[in-house]
């Protein structure tokens, strides 16, 4: 049985049932029996449980020295690709990642600007739900997904700066600024965590299809360093 496509998942809202798929034809065997158990193409999916709003990582800014202004904007239309978790039993800890679903902003969420040396992983709220899929001939299946962006902002500070080789750094005059409109602003392997009764940690990628914006401004002579390439091509920038 195929799992529901992300386009179907994206349209499913709390309280709403998925369209039923009725077999277009059923052929009886030689005994005249139609075996629906071997034809699991009759499925009903429904919202099962509201898991509430969860903080989810959407962006990162880094400065190793003071006097650099950094600002992350989760701009209107920006989107995050959030992993979907599936489980055959629905029991805690049995969900595994399989595909993702995109959730977009409906207005701009500005994260606070920072001017001191800092490592910042920015988060915002998404609402998550648990869904159930009942198919003929197959046991129930469960999945979890974000169904709505809920705005808000929060920040955590990772222990380490990303590594940045010197040849991926460019000089920055005092007064210089970078605006980084990324198609892939940030990627977090552990982007969000759904605790009990789900027990699933999913990945999150921001700006996969739409832009988020990161601004840096140097108030001293310094450098912009890419984490995996020069700044115009890098996945993330560290200001030095």
């Amino acid at each position, binding site marked *: 049985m195929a799992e529901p496509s992300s386009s179907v998942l994206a349209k499913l809202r709390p309280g709403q049932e998925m369209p039923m798929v009725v077999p277009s034809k059923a052929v009886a065997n030689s005994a005249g029996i139609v075996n629906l158990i071997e034809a699991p193409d009759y499925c009903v999916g429904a919202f099962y449980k509201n898991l509430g709003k969860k903080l989810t990582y959407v962006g990162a800014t880094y400065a190793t020295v003071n006097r650099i202004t950094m600002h992350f904007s989760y701009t209107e239309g920006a989107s995050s690709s959030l992993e979907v978790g599936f489980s055959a039993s629905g029991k805690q800890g049995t969900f595994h990642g399989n595909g993702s679903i995109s959730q977009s902003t409906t207005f701009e969420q500005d994260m606070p600007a920072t001017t001191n040396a800092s490592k910042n992983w920015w988060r915002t709220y998404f609402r998550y739900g648990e869904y159930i899929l009942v198919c003929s001939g197959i046991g129930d299946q469960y999945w979890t997904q974000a169904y709505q962006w809920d705005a808000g902002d929060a920040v955590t500070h990772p222990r380490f700066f990303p590594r940045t080789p010197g040849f991926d750094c460019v000089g920055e005059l005092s007064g*210089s600024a970078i605006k980084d409109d990324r198609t892939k602003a940030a990627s977090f392997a552990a982007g969000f965590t759904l605790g009990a009764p789900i027990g699933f940690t999913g990945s999150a990628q921001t700006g996969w299809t739409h832009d988020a914006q990161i601004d840096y401004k140097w108030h001293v002579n310094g450098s912009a360093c890419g984490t995996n390439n020069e700044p*115009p091509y890098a996945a993330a920038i560290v200001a030095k």
Partner: protein
Amino acid sequence: MTRRALMLPLVMTLAAAACAGDPGTGPLGPAGNGGQQCIPAPLGVPRAMGDFTLHNTGTAPVSVNSVTLTDPRGLAQGKPWLLPVIGELVGTALWPPQGRAWARRIPADGAVLRPGQALNLVLEVRRTRNPSGTSQVTIDYAASGTTYSLTEGWSVQVAGTCSA
């Protein structure tokens, strides 16, 4: 309208695109992210913009034909240069840049990059109007008899004051 009538313009468009001979992505790779590098400078005063690296990822030499500002609105450029990568790239700097890499610069126009070679592209830019000028950068080059045009996603801005 029939399905055939609907399909015909699409087929013609695709055929025209094929005939136009778009060579696709060349050995200098695809354009980078969208974004902007702003450099502070008084009106008419030159600055160095050296954020880009030209990296020949192919197996044949690359000949740089020209490096130009794509749509220079209020910006003027000087002669473009290629520098060896020694430590960090020039990025934004007063004009002319200093250091060992600058001492070993070669003109970008007509330069040849060996397979695997990476050189730092440095442009002299100045704004010609207030409050600022902005443009992307286009590199026209050839490799193995095919010409390519690469317009970087990252644009250049020169302003009296760069906004954060």
